[in-house]
């Protein structure tokens, strides 16, 4: 019961696949357009100035220094936050140390879990507020912060809350004890979600924490501080020190920190790994990636196109596991690229608070500069750069969704993590070639495979040297699902049962 159109699609080698002449072309240059549907910010309370959250209260930084966090969609200041220096970090670590020996360490496992359940519930209650602030501060589309980030934040606390009194069942033959004080440094791409990924397992396992949010996205973590207070988390159990790289360095090097958890670039991860050499501090690193998203000729092409778009344009491509290298089997490459270009023409780049927006603002001017430098590198390397002609706002930081076509393995835009909405496209002929090319990178965080053949999906999944493989889907996350990298993409796992042990001392 196929229509003529579907029949023609099944014989792509004969189909005319240039988007301009294809009779199935999608037309968007019509007279109608989406009316703006901005999320209201009336409900949001933001202070003009924030202190540091130490020992259960907001305090002034010892330095008195502050910096501004801006809305990248308008290049406007949202608030001034405190720059934590060595004295502030020390104060926070001392508070965490005391809380470990005090109320938190003495609390029963079940009670500790109940507090985390409360945190999860309160995040759900304040989800709208948190989503809006996340989009304001970081530039991500409200559709994503509302439907993905914040629900996952609550889910993470809810998931790990339940582990608090069940740790004896998690590690057969071993006795589990908390490590002590965890110093946690998180990135700007999923500000509150990364805070949840770090805090929830650390607290469920009985540790106390000093958390350093990213310089450009500190606000939702400071909002979380309010929730932690309301939920009855004892003072000092979680301390939040805002600042820049130096603040993170102070935290990593503090002698009373027992464990460091870092999510960010491979470059900084290596600096941290080196700084911890010769100490007894444990660490987990969740670093960069350059994931291969592999599409076979037998894949459901339209679904694959959606998956490719979600893989690289989700959160402006500011995703360590983004499917930033596309490998298409040669026989369907023309068709797929044509469809991909069509789909990209429908993407709406603009106001993150608009519910229609697909691609929001680039997180900072620095990041935009980096992405634009790679656009130039791509051109100078001789690859074809394709962008749809969508409009972007006048102020703020924006990048249109971009394809690099005709890439080779040796191109820098193929080898290096760009962390933006740019996709390097390559082709392949055989399964072995795809595997070889996909694994030809120092990274190993994630990968994707699109095929209708189950055996092939499992083979690719087996052969990809990466910690997460999405088969016929991409960029899915869940608190029960372990996440983390092979090779230079990091050490350790976050999420699920496997996310517990990095915060525990296991003894016989």
């Amino acid at each position, binding site marked *: 019961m196929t229509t003529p159109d579907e029949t023609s699609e099944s014989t792509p080698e004969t189909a005319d696949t240039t988007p301009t002449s294809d009779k199935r072309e999608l037309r968007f240059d019509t007279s109608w357009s989406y009316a703006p549907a901005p999320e209201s910010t009336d409900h949001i309370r933001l202070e003009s100035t924030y202190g540091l959250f130490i020992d259960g209260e907001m305090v002034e930084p010892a330095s008195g220094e502050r910096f501004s966090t801006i809305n990248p969609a308008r290049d406007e200041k949202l608030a001034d936050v405190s720059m934590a220096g060595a004295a502030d970090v020390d104060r926070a670590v001392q508070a965490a140390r005391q809380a470990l020996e005090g109320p938190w360490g003495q609390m029963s496992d079940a009670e500790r879990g109940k507090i985390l359940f409360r945190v999860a519930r309160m995040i759900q209650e304040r989800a709208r507020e948190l989503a809006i602030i996340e989009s304001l501060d970081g530039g991500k589309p409200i559709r994503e912060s509302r439907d993905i980030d914040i629900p996952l934040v609550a889910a993470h606390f809810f998931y790990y809350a339940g582990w608090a009194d069940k740790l004896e069942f998690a590690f057969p033959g071993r006795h589990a004890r908390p490590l002590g004080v965890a110093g946690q440094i998180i990135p700007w791409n999923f500000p509150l979600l990364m805070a949840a990924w770090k805090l929830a397992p650390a607290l469920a396992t009985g540790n106390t924490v000093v958390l350093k949010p990213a310089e450009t996205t500190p606000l939702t973590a400071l909002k979380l501080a309010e929730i932690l207070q309301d939920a009855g988390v004892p003072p000092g159990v979680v301390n939040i020190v805002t600042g820049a790289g130096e603040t993170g360095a102070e935290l990593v090097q503090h002698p009373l920190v027992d464990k460091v958890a870092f999510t960010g670039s491979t470059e900084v991860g*290596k600096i941290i790994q*080196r700084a911890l050499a010769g100490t007894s501090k444990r660490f987990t690193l969740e670093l960069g990636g350059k994931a291969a998203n592999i599409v076979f000729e037998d894949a459901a092409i339209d679904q694959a196109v959606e998956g490719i778009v979600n893989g690289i344009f989700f959160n402006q491509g500011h995703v360590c596991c983004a499917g930033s290298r596309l490998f298409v089997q040669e026989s369907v490459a023309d068709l797929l690229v044509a469809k991909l270009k069509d789909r990209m023409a429908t993407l709406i780049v603009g106001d993150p608070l608009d519910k229609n927006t697909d691609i929001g603002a680039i997180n900072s001017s620095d990041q935009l500069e980096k992405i634009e430098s790679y656009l130039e590198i791509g051109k100078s390397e001789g690859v074809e750069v394709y962008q749809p002609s969508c409009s972007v706002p006048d102020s703020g930081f924006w990048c249109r969704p971009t394809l690099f076509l005709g890439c080779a393995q040796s191109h820098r835009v193929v080898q290096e993590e760009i962390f933006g909405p740019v996709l390097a496209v390559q082709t392949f002929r055989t399964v072995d070639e795809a595997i070889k090319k996909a694994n030809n990178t120092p990274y190993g965080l994630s990968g994707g495979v699109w095929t209708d053949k189950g055996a092939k999906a499992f083979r690719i999944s087996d052969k990809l040297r990466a910690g997460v493989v999405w088969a016929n889907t991409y960029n899915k996350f869940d608190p029960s699902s372990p996440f983390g990298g092979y090779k230079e993409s990091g050490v350790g796992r976050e999420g699920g049962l496997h996310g517990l042990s990095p915060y525990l001392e296991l003894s016989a």
Partner: protein
Amino acid sequence: MSTDSTQSSSLEQPSVADGAEPETQRLGVLKTYKLFVGGKFPRTESGRYDPLAAPSGDLIANVSRGSRKDFREAVVAARAAQSGWAGRSAYNRGQILYRIAEVLEGRKAQFREELELCGLSSEDASSEVAHAIDTWVHYAGWCDKFQQLFSTVNPVASSHFNFTLLEPTGVVAIVAAEEGGLAGLTAALAPAIASGNTCIALASERFPLSAITFGEVLHTSDVPAGVVNLLTGRRSELIEHIASHLDVNAVVSYDPDPDRRKRLQEEAVHNVKRVILREPGHGPSPYAILDTTEAKTTWHPIGT
């Protein structure tokens, strides 16, 4: 002669049975202790050696002093063997580990003798060899079980089938414990290869002979060439190269020296190597297998 054999046992009379009259005219055959790399027994490319003396002062062997290049050759062999070894079925790997125990059992006497030659009491040597054999049997059994213990099916909230299983980290370098030339090596090797890693192990400096003789056991136990590579040499000289090699995925070290530990951790950053520091003397454990594995999570939609 037989009463103080550990004192006077020398290479001129290697096979004298207790109480028997020595065949005084026969000259013993000395063994050249070479490296074990890629299933072969090459000399060190460097041509260097370290003399190994018995407590009596007698020369036991000129032990190969492995070089950086030897290590690199061994990494090439280990990398070449890795996917094939990991691709064996868990059942097959288990049988091969068990085969190691079988062959080792048959050559107990030789290992005891070598350990005694290096100064162990005969009681200690016997117990060390027995312990090593039993450890191989123990890990042989883990090959097709640890996965079931540590893998998960994850109840994600969306409509996906999601599971996490363990894969070998890849190529693992081992700095074996200084004490226990055979048992220490076994404690490090067995959990690493049980999951499908391939290894380059730097033997104990004090007890290097067992390592090379153990290579002969591996050679005759159906262990594919390159899965285990054994080097003798000086850790002070090699540690930096082991740590910084970009095609080594993990290092398991029993070296207690704090400076070398720090050096190892510092140089490991170049490719975010996993560094596992262990104290010698722990019993076998599936958690030792876990140390050199990576958890991989696979998602697939559930639908029509």
